[in-house]
Every structure is written in C-alpha cells, then in structure tokens.
C-alpha cells in the first residue's frame, strides 16, 4: 500500500488504467479514437450535398430521422485517393451532444491500451498537421497508433461544423 503522502509524479506509480479505443486506417497510418465517442459504424451511402460547404463535408444523411452531417477525414487529411464504394465505412460519432459521421479507409479493431503505453506527441517546429488534435502516440506490436482527439478536431474552428466556430 502506497502511503497517501508519497510523491507520485510518475504516472506509472498510479494504478494503471485501461482505455478503449476504436482504431481505423487512413492512408498508411493507424489512428485510434476514444470508443465512448463512437455511436455506430455504417456503410457508405450517398449523402445530400450542401453546396458552398468545404470539400471534406460530403453532405447530410438521414440517420433514422435525424439529419447527420458526413465528413471525409481522408479529404481533410489530404490523402491522395478518396473513393466511395460498398466497402467505404462511416463512423457515426456522438460528440458534444451532436451526431456526426466521418469517412475513413477502414475500421480495424477495438484496442485496449493501458494509459502508460501512451506517449506524448513529439513537438514539430513546422507541422503540416496541427498536433493539437493528437494528444499522444502508442506502439502496438510493431505498429504506430496515432491517438486522435476527435472531439477537439470536429468542434475546431477550421471544421465549420459548428455554428459560430468558423466566423
């Protein structure tokens, strides 16, 4: 038993908490998002386009009577190819009491990670991608998992997904 006043600056000394992530592929990379934000996973259906919206916003779909915006993370992350076929997957997310769908290349697995396996993101001096949305990295086997703060990403100003955020 640890004395209550012991200094526990290192997280390793605290009881190790497990967190669950949904992992998916975008291009060559593996990403992981908090599974508690995921409502469901659906196949691709052609959304109704909203003219004059950013290219990564593919439009809105009818999800059991609710109008849900669909955005393509592949377009957002400037991946070379973004095609849509019967294997294209949409992750329906529940963020900040809103529902939104994101298109990814493929959904891989549900992953349970101890918190101490997550390493902070290295600092980039000239980042092409804003690392504010990436709270950490983790290694699983030989592969690198990029943790994505999907809530911060989707409610961020440049996503134009939420009123008032874009102007």
């Amino acid at each position, binding site marked *: 038993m640890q004395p209550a006043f012991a200094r526990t600056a290192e997280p390793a000394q605290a009881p190790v908490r497990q967190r669950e992530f949904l992992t998916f592929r975008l291009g060559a990379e593996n990403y992981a998002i908090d599974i508690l934000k995921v409502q469901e996973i659906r196949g691709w259906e052609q959304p109704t386009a909203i*003219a004059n919206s950013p290219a990564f916003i593919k439009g809105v*779909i009818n999800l*059991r009577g609710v109008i*849900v915006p669909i955005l393509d993370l592949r377009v957002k992350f400037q991946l070379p190819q973004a095609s849509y076929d019967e294997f294209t997957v949409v992750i329906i997310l529940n963020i900040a009491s809103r529902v939104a769908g994101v298109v990814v290349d493929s959904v891989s697995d549900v992953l349970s990670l101890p918190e101490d396996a997550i390493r902070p993101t290295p600092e980039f001096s000239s980042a092409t991608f804003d690392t504010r949305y990436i709270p950490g990295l983790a290694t699983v086997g030989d592969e690198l998992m990029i943790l994505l703060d999907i809530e911060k990403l989707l409610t961020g100003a440049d996503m134009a997904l*939420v*009123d008032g955020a874009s102007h």
Partner: protein
Amino acid sequence: MTQTPTGFGDPNAYRAIFFDETQEHLANVEAILLRLRPDEASPGLQGDFNAIFRAVHSIKGSAAMLGCDDMAGLAHLQENLLDLLRKDERPLEAGDVEALLRAGDALQAQALRHRGMTDRAPDTSAVEALLRDQLARPRIGAQGAQSGPVRRAFSVTLGPLVAAIDAGDLEMMLAGLGEMGSVADTRIDNQPGGSVAFSVELEGTAADLESVLALVVPTDITTIEPAGASAPVKAAPQPVPSDDLGDELFVDPAVFKQRRAASEPAPAIAPAPGPASAPALLADLHEPVSVAAAETGYIRVSIEKIDLLVNLVGELVITEAMLARSAASQEDGTAPTFSDAGLADLSRHTRNLQEAVLAIRMLPISNVFSRFPRLVHELSARLGKRVELKFGGESTELDRGLIEKISDPLTHLVRNAVDHGLETAETRIACGKPPVGTVRLHATQRGGSVVIEVSDDGRGLDRERILAKAARMGIPVAADATDAQVWQLVFLPGFSTAEQVTDLSGRGVGMDVVRRNIQALGGSVDISSAAGWGTTVTVSVPLTLAIVEAMTVSVGGATYVLPLASVAESLRIEAQQIHRLPHEGDTLRVRDDWLPVLHLARLFPPAQAAAEAGGIAVIVEAEGRRVALVVDELVGQQQVVVKSLEANYRRVPGLSGATVMGDGSVALILDVSHLVRLCAAREPASP
C-alpha cells in the same frame, strides 16, 4: 428523520414537479386576482380567496420542504394577507391586489433562481414591505381583541381513515402546520380504519386549520376541537346555531360573514345578505374539491417524450411511403409481395396515428392570451387609459412550438393597440365613444392555418401622417395609393409614426420585427384600419411547424423543397422574357412586372450541371417582395416533415432546414426570406 418519505424518491424529479406546479399555481392566482374588482361591493369572494390561499399555501409547503426558504417566507406573508381577506376582516382594496400580484412576480423570480435559470436573487424587500403595509391596514370590527395574532390550541383527529394517507402528504401537512405554529402529541396509525391525531397550536382559526387539513384528508372525517373544550365541532361547514358574535373561532367564515352583515347596519362594503347568498357561498367553498377530482384526467408528460413520438411517427410515414412505392413498382412484375388491402390499411392507420400524435403537441391559444390581462392591467394603469380586454376563440389549438414563438409578436401588437391605438378617456368622450376602450383578441382556424386578430376601437391609423413620414424618409408612394398600400408602409424598418416616443413602444423597431418574426414562422401579417374606428392587425400562422405543405424542385439532379405558402406561381421561361441588366443580374418579365431573377444553380452549384438547365421560373414571395427563382424542373407537391439542420450541423445561409423524402434521402428546404433578401441587397436604390 433519516429516511426519505416514499413520495419523494427522486428529489430532482420532485423539484421539477414543484417548479411546474408553482408556475401553474401562480398563473391561477394571477388570473383570479385580475378578475377581482377591489373597492366594489362584490359578494362571494371567499371562494376566490380560498382558491388563492390554497395555491399559495401549497407553494409555501413544498418550498419549505425543498429548502427554498425565501419562497416559503414570501408565501407565508401572502398567506397572512389572504387569511385576513378571506375572513372578511376588511374589504378588498386595490392595494391588496397590487401587493399580491407583485408578490406573485417575486415568487416567480425566486423560482427561476432556484431552477438555476438566473443567478440573481430577486430583491423582495419592497414586495414584503408592501404586503406588511396591506396587512397593517385598519380592519373593520377591530375591537381590541382582534388587534394582534392570537395563538389558539386545537386537538385534531383524522379518522377513521378509509385508506392510508400518502406518507409524503402527511409529512408535508405536519411540516406545514409546524411552520404555522407547533404540533405536539402526534399519534399516527396510518392504515385503513386507523386514525391520525395530534394537538396543534397556531395563529389562526379552526377554518384555517381545516383548509390545511383538507389538502390531505376529506373534511368529513376531520374532527377539530379547541384544546380542553368538551364539545367537539365537526369541521364540515354546517351553520352553527350560535348567536354570539364574539365566538367566531369555530364558525364557518361564510356564515359568520352573513351574520355580521345582518348585525351591522348598512356597512359600505358588506354584500347584501339575501337569503340565496348563503348557499351560494357554501357552494363556493366546496367548488375546488370537484376541480381537484377533474384534474386526475391528465398526466404530465415531458416534451422530449412527445417530440420523440413525433419523430418516430415521421419515420413510420416515410417507411410506409417506401413500402407503397416498392409495392407499386412490383405490380408489373411477377408475384405481388404485398397485399393491397394491407397496404391501404397501413397507410390509413399511419395517417391517423400521425394526426393523433401531432394533436398531442397542440395547445389552446389561451396559453398565450392568458398573459395579456396582466399586461393590459399594467399598461392601462401606466397610461391612465381605461381598457377592456376581450377574447374570442381561446380554445383554438396551435402547435406548442408556435405558441412560444407567437407570444412575443402578439405582445407587441397588444401593447401597440393600448399605447397608440386607444385614446384617453377624455378624448374618447369628446369623440362620442364610450370612455372605456376595447382591445379584442380573436383566434380562428382556417384550413391549415390559425388566424389571430388583434383589434382596438381606437383612433385608427393616420393616412396623412404615414404619407408625410414616408416622404421624410424618401420612400416613394404613388399619389393614388390605396389605404391598404399605405398601411403596408408601417411594416418598413425604422417606420414609426408615434408623435412622442414612450417607454412602451414607438421606437420604430416595432412592426417590421413583428412581421419578420411572423414570416419566419411561415405566416403573414395584415393590417386594416379606419380613422376613428380603430385598427385590426391580422396574423396568420400555420397550424404546426412540424409539417409543411411543400413544392419540390430539382436543380442539377439535387432536390430542393420550397414551402408552398411562399410560392406564388411557376411558369416556363421563354427566351425573350429574360433580360440581362448591366451590373444588376437578370430580370424576368411576368405579365407587366419585371422581377429580379435568382438562378438556384448559381446559388447552390450542383455537383453536375444539368444538360438543359433553368427551364422553369418559380415566383416566390416573402417580406412583400417577389423574386423569380430559376430551377430545372418541378418535381411535385407533398407534405414534408421539417427537420433541423442546426441540431447536428450548422445554419446554412439560404436553407431553413431539411426533410426526409419518400425514398429515405435528405432534401434541403430553401429559406425564401433569405433568397428574397439576397435580391433586395442587390438593388442599390432600396433603403
């Protein structure tokens, strides 16, 4: 007490109910107060006072239990004043009504704070002072003995009980009594056949005590005895044969009043004690019991649950349409998969279900009207005008969402009618009109819309003054403009003809805002007026916001929805009708008019351009302007269920929402007001 009484398992749920009920009680109290005519001899007020007393008392009890001590304290003061009035210790004065109204407002403000809707604790010291002042007013028949509150002791027996009393109610009652005085010797045998007995000491009469007990147990099993007295008095209001005026402790207030009236020679305030009035008063006292019984026909349901139901039924309607379509497409094929009769039934039941569910959301418009007596009461006092407010068609039903949105514009119209429309009593008499002005609110249902008229019998709109103002603002008006055209000017932004700006209205932000708000609901506003006879403003809104009769159009393969109410006509464009003006965009000739043209395909560029684009012009109308909207094709006309785009996405300029079509796909609903304003912004000369 360590254990929570069974009735209040979830304190939060109970709080919500308390706030709801407080709201209802306060609304009732206000309605009754505004009906009272102070300083006039009016018999039969005890019933009213008792009803108010009960409402205030139940607010006090629940507030104290939930720890809202400020509310309980204020309610207690109100109770004291009401107690005085209902025992007829002095006549009702205008000051009483005012003090009680203000106290109601303060309770409302306190409730809002407890609900967390505002952080500011209302300052109730003025209201409390007002109540205390009214309490201290001289009473009639104050003969020394009655000058101060007297504590009296009673022993109370409730029983034999037919059924056990709800533990929560019993708890609340005892706590309430404890607050009024002190409760001792409590013996509780709370089961059928058992009884509850206690002795209580409080500042009040047996009738007070009875009214508190009546909240929990029927009066016929209640026995109240003065402590130490030998003869028990049944609390049921039977005339007690006694001639001693001093013994008012156990006399029913109504009987007491009757006797006092008889013994005092011609008091200015006492009602004429006709032989018929005593039974009438007794009937008054018993009326609330039957009201309480009637209330059990309702249940409280949260709005979210109903909205969920509306959504689910909307889904069902769409699914039904999909089934019908796929059945129709199979008819030419081999074997029919669906039975036609079954499908027809399904479609009928679905439609009935949809109507029934939407009807749940409908509320009578009296919900809006009920706020106006208070408004007119305050306005008439402030402006020194005498106003009578009349209602018609209060039971006309309207969607709940609309009820909320329509109350602000209507408030504005009523305020205008009293402030600008009606003259002062002197002016009215000089014009040969009755001194009391009339403002009338009337609602009717016409087809799919509800028409609300706000009319006054005041001075009417002044054509000359409106024209003069238009000239000053540089708005061109034809010399031979009809009255109707002149009245339309009132709806322009910044147009106000009030000679002096009062603090109530006349800042020139009035009618244009009213019109914009009503149009945002898919409705319209019209005005008619005759000098010297008054003004009538007619507001028309759709019955419900959830379903809209719509026209569907297509542009480059995408489907858009236009609310049918804003579509004037549609026509095929001939090449020679459309002209390009330099720097101005296109214009389309429709008979003798030249209308600005909006190409929907340019506003909302489609993914793929249509082969033969822009063949049809739909003339849409909003905010008094007409615009030709160029589309590829008309698709059809149908009812659509309006869904919010903002709920999960954001507001998109030019779109007012989305809907789900028969095949399950999403179509966007165009915001016609926005489109029209786009054209207005393009016209450089417009003000």
